[in-house]
């Protein structure tokens, strides 16, 4: 087959996973990554650890020149795609240039959700999404004492933890409650208690009405009527897919760029993966957004494989998250709320232990644990492989570490055996 050129917009987790997959399948094809940013590839998940000082910027780079050289992948930095022209298989750049491709991967990621609040522009708010955002925040932080964070999602909480660890005061303003997307009320409360115990102030059920500058500080008027003061206001209300260059291209979009199980859009040769893609959900098969790192890697891998000509299907995304903070570990995988599910749930407020399983038709669909010694990935295995729990659901709940491992090993063993027969 003739040499092909794969053009990738973005250089995040999905893009890197695609590059690796393409290269493992084809030595000859040309691979080019184009990024708006002026940096080497890095992971957004590592940014909070810059704030807490656990790593330095020098440790951030996931793919340095050496690695890209080994992958025979060229990285074009500081170039913004402004248009995609599927008929002539080209993209156009902001600087007027054009670039052709045989396969295009849209992995341009997401941008923070924007909002309009009275006074927002005047007070000079911070966002926390890219490395440049982090640098901006770092600058703002010099000589400051406390930060108000508007948002209760994972980015907001990770940032709060990092700031607390770095010795800053943190005021969390949350519209409902923290980590609502991943943990139920009870688990959320436990996490909240730990954060409060480490000095965070949490304002639940509050929206911001107005922001005002007062003596170098920000005065935040809340919907509850009270007001909060902080040196800096950071906004972290989640992210939205970002692919403005697709306008007029004919690529179908919904909430994000719509893709099928091959991660291909409605147009042949154009793929999407990562935060930008609206792809099938593992449990329902319905398209949806799932802007998390594991989904980006899996989606990128599938897209890369299909681009290189090796058919591969995306199993679908599972919501999942893990939070390691102040000597605690909480994680959740899958779906944990639904009337049709059998729910097993228990918590020990004293020991800060929490466990919850959701099953449907004897199969695990969700698991959430806090400070229980076990292997979280094994639960992902049980969900993804749709392992039949039979009469062992209760036992799995009682002894999650042992029974999950047993179920996993048995399934692996049987799979091997069935191949041999």
């Amino acid at each position, binding site marked *: *087959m003739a*040499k092909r050129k794969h053009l990738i917009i973005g250089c995040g987790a999905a893009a890197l*996973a695609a590059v*690796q997959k393409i290269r493992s*399948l*084809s*030595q*000859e*094809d040309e691979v080019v990554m184009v990024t708006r940013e002026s940096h080497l590839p890095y*992971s*957004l*998940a*590592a940014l909070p*650890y810059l704030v807490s000082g*656990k*790593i330095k910027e020098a*440790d*951030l*780079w*996931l793919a340095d020149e050496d690695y890209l050289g080994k992958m025979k992948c060229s990285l074009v930095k500081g170039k913004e795609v402004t248009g995609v022209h599927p008929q002539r298989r080209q993209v156009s750049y902001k600087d007027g240039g054009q670039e052709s491709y045989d396969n295009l991967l849209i992995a341009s990621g997401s941008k923070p959700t924007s909002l309009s609040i009275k006074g927002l522009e005047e007070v000079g708010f911070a966002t926390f999404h890219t490395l440049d955002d982090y640098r901006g925040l770092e600058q703002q932080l010099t000589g400051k004492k406390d930060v108000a964070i508007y948002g209760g999602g994972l980015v907001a909480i990770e940032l709060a933890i990092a700031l607390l660890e770095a010795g800053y005061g943190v005021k969390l303003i949350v519209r409902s409650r923290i980590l609502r997307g991943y943990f139920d009320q009870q688990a959320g409360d436990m996490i909240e208690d730990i954060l409060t115990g480490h000095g965070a102030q949490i304002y639940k059920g509050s929206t911001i009405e107005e922001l005002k500058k007062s003596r170098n500080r920000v005065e935040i008027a809340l919907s509850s009527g009270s007001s909060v003061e902080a040196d800096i206001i950071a906004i972290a209300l989640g992210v939205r897919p970002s692919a403005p260059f697709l306008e007029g291209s004919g690529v179908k979009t919904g909430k994000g760029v719509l893709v099928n199980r091959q991660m291909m859009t409605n147009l042949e040769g154009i793929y999407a993966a990562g935060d930008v893609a609206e792809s099938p959900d593992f449990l329902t098969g319905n398209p949806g957004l799932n802007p998390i*790192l*594991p989904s980006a*890697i899996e989606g990128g*891998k599938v897209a890369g494989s299909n681009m*290189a*000509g090796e058919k591969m299907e995306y199993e679908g995304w599972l919501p*999942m998250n*893990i*939070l*390691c903070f102040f*000597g*605690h*570990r909480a*994680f959740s*995988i899958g779906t944990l709320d639904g009337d049709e599910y059998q729910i097993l749930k228990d918590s020990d407020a004293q020991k800060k232990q929490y466990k919850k399983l959701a099953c449907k038709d004897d199969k695990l669909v969700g698991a959430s644990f806090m*400070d229980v010694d076990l*292997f*979280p*990935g*094994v639960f*992902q*295995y049980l969900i*993804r492989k749709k392992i039949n729990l039979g009469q*062992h659901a209760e*036992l799995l709940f009682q*002894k999650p*570490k*042992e*029974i999950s*491992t*047993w179920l*996993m*090993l048995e399934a*692996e*063993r049987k799979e091997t055996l069935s191949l041999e027969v």
Partner: protein
Amino acid sequence: MKGFYDVLKVEYGRCPPDCSDCEAACVKERTGREGCSGITAIHAPEVDFHTAVKCNQCSEPPCLAICPTGAISKSEVDGIVRIDENKCIGCGLCTLACPYAGMSYNLDERKAFKCDLCDGSPKCLDACPNGLISLLKSRDIISHFRGEDVFSPGVPNCAGCPIELSMRWTFRILGKDTFVFAAEGCSIYLTRGVSTEAICAIPAYICCMTNVPSTATGVKRYYRHIGKDVKTVAFIGDGAASDVGFQPLSGAAERGENLIVICCDNEGFQATGNQRSGTTSLFGKTATTPVGGKWRGKPQAPKYMPLIMASHQIPYVATATISDPEDYARKLTKAMAVKDGLSYIHLFSPCITGWRARTEDSIEICRLAVETNYFPLWEAEDGKFRFTHQVENPRPIGEFTRLMGRFSHLKEEDLAELQQLVNKRFKLVKALCEMDN
């Protein structure tokens, strides 16, 4: 050597209840940190399951892919997946990604940790009271034999069987950058190591007898698709080539697939118990063509596969046998040079057990097959036939048949008939060879 790594093997599910000696040894002798063990004892008495789990050192580790700081790496030298503790930020994502309970996490240190095989001498090995943990040193074994040839010693072929010698010679010529496809037959004892510990150090795939060339075609095309030219060799018996698997072979030849097909002809389905095949000699005694009553061995003349293959107009066809190794080597070299179609080598290979011959006679039978013109050595390059070994004074066929019990029932007239058949076939090949001169 990339791809061949040592593996820590745990006999799953056989641990003594409540034993965690491996864990203790790991903490004491490796990590030195309480609560940090690269191997975990799992005890579930409720389902009567006791085992130890550890990292599998995956070839494409999901923990490595997800690590946001690149702290996890896989060594190309020893295959071990390691965590750089200075770079680990303790985010826990790797524990979420690993499906096999191979990644542990210490809450107090806020670090992930895992088994690193103690860099090659695992401390848990000796700690196990029941010896259930072992280090499979596949790397050492394979690298040792790769220096010599691609098969380890200790193959279970019958005493005196020339297949072992033929195959070792074949792959010494073809080289190690070869994919071999085999099917049920006497050669898979080397390629697969059936019921032995024999190791084949090149990629070997065992197909059904009916689809070897098709499978090889797929792999060859796949590699061509990703831009690699690999040598793809089907090493099969006469049953798989000329009988049950003839159609895919004929199809692959006609389509012009760039494969090397070596038919190791022992004139019968010998691995399954000496049944006749399409290439079994006239009068040859087999389990299905016995002697006695109205039977006098196989009543039909054998089909002459090399000429059938030559009729496909493929770039290269040759006959060979291991009594003439240099001749065979030259033919393999020519087959390797073919890039625009299929090359076929018909390798004569006596079955000592099935043919009722003495073990020390295997090479002598090959030699006499050539010297009696029972199996003339020739090649056809792009349709040009040529003898590669001219026999000046052919020996009578009786010298060949007397070495084998399968022909012991032959009377004078049978021998004459067999001689006539041999002469006729030889004349045909000779005519083809003279055709171009």
